[in-house]
């Protein structure tokens, strides 16, 4: 299963948004654990299954004046096991 989300940084936390839901954490490790919990709680990931979470970076985190120099920060793919 491939789940598409966006990721941004609000100055204190990394924030992943999936539809109207969001998960936030100060570090990427904690964020990934939060993502795993979210997938299980929402029933999107069952025991023994694997899910790939594609996190596309929301460029609004980068100020407009910098975007003229570079329009990409990073995209991540995280594999989560149920």
């Amino acid at each position, binding site marked *: 299963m491939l789940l598409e989300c966006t990721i941004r940084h609000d100055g204190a936390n990394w924030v992943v948004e999936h539809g109207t839901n969001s998960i936030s954490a100060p570090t990427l490790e904690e964020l990934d654990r939060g993502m795993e919990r979210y997938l299980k709680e929402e029933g999107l990931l069952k025991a023994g299954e694997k899910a790939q979470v594609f996190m596309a970076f929301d460029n609004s985190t980068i100020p407009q004046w910098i975007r003229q120099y570079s329009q990409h920060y990073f*995209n991540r*793919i995280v594999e989560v096991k149920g």
Partner: protein
Amino acid sequence: MAEPNRKWYTGMTTQEDWWAVWLGVGFFFLAMVNIFGLDLVGWMTYPTKWVFSPPEGGKGAIGGAFYALGKKYSATSKGFYSGLGWWSVVWSYVIFGAAACIGAAFMRWNLKKFLAGWTIIYFLTIATWFIGHHGFIAASKLDMEKYGLGFALSLGGGGSFILALIVGLVIGNFFRGFAGYLSEAAKPEWYIKTAIVTLGVKLGYLPIKLSGMSQQLGEQATTLTFDLFVAGAAATIVAYLIFWPGVYVISRKIFKLPRKTAAVLGSGISICGVSAAVATGGAVRAKPVVSIMVSALVVIWAVIELVVLPGFFTHVWPTTKDPLVAGAAMGMSVKTDGADAAAGELMDSFMRNKVEVETAGATVWPEGIVTSSAVMTKVWIDMFIGLWAFILALVWVYRIDRRPGERVPGSEVWHRFPKFVLGYFFCWLFLLALYFGPGQTGAPEAAPFLKSVKAGAVPVEKGMRKLFFMLTFMSLGIITDFKKLKEAQFGKMIWVYFIALFLFIIPVAILIAYLFHHGMKIPNIAGF
């Protein structure tokens, strides 16, 4: 929300990088319609030197200070374009303004603010371009008598660039409210990327131009551009391998900066400024604020380099003895595309004037070759950023952070690839194909065909390119607020930057440029 880069084609209509390609290549195609006998670009405006009181029979009437390039170069509509004169300034404002507004609309900028900013920046640019072409500033020692002058600063077109930068800096630092008002249209990177696409036209047109003087000169120019291409790549690879580890070690060992900050700073100082700082920040998964701080430093220092290096390279070392070493070193030393291309263009003007005066007119270099050498190394550096950031991401994700389950998508290389480079190479190769194909490598039989190509290429590589360079200088000044250095808590980073740049990067850049570019000769077109 700003659009995330999800697919390979994301951003084609919404990112400045792509819009530099659309503007540059769009006007290039318009120019190439000349091959079919229709001149659609002869209206592009260009300044010429002027004085208040031209001597009798001499040159420099104010009425002719701006002219449409079609007046000189059009193969089909010289009569029409001759009549435009100063009106070419308005034609250029309307047509380039409309094209820029279409881009701004697609990029979802505030169109009203953009148009107001564009209008003010454009006419300020034209005013400085005009003043900078006064004979006292621009005339060379060899032709000042034609303007009835006993003395001239001999800055060539460089005087206009310096003026534009000064006017921009005054606005950016003393009229901050006004600078803020102009900010929607003060986009030096967009303008310079567009100018670099048209520099591809310049590079491709060079053999065509010189073959009009002699077929042998055309062949020399072709060989030189290929040499620059290969030497630029080699020098860039060597620079990457020396610069990045060097700055990383300086940051870590001497200044004790954290690992991620050292990595971002290392890329910002040693590779290609803001783009590399952002790419590396993303690659090592640093908080965006680290890249943002380094980017602010890069922009300020790049402007300082732009002011200092062209004069230094022209008059101290390597001087006119090795102009292409100087150009390549500039490309490796100045850390934003805008400041590098602008510095290269400034140095191009300084070097050509100097060599003409030194040899009493026996040596004349075609304009733009020194700029091309500065931009070529920078273009290679830009192209490698994506690959370098990808390697760093692999090292960080799999070796340093070792987060279970995380994977680095290969598409990252493409998302970080500078798309304007595609326009630059496209224009260059298109013109080379015309030169080697129907142009018969400059053979006299192909002269009418090459003349029609010239009628299209010149307004783009000369008029549009110079105008966008001027817009870059002006915008660069407007967005450069030196107060940022004082306000922000950069701490040690300022000193890392200063020491790494002046004591490590620039000397090593000159050395590497020397190794790969020493001995390359610019064709002498004196007497043609």
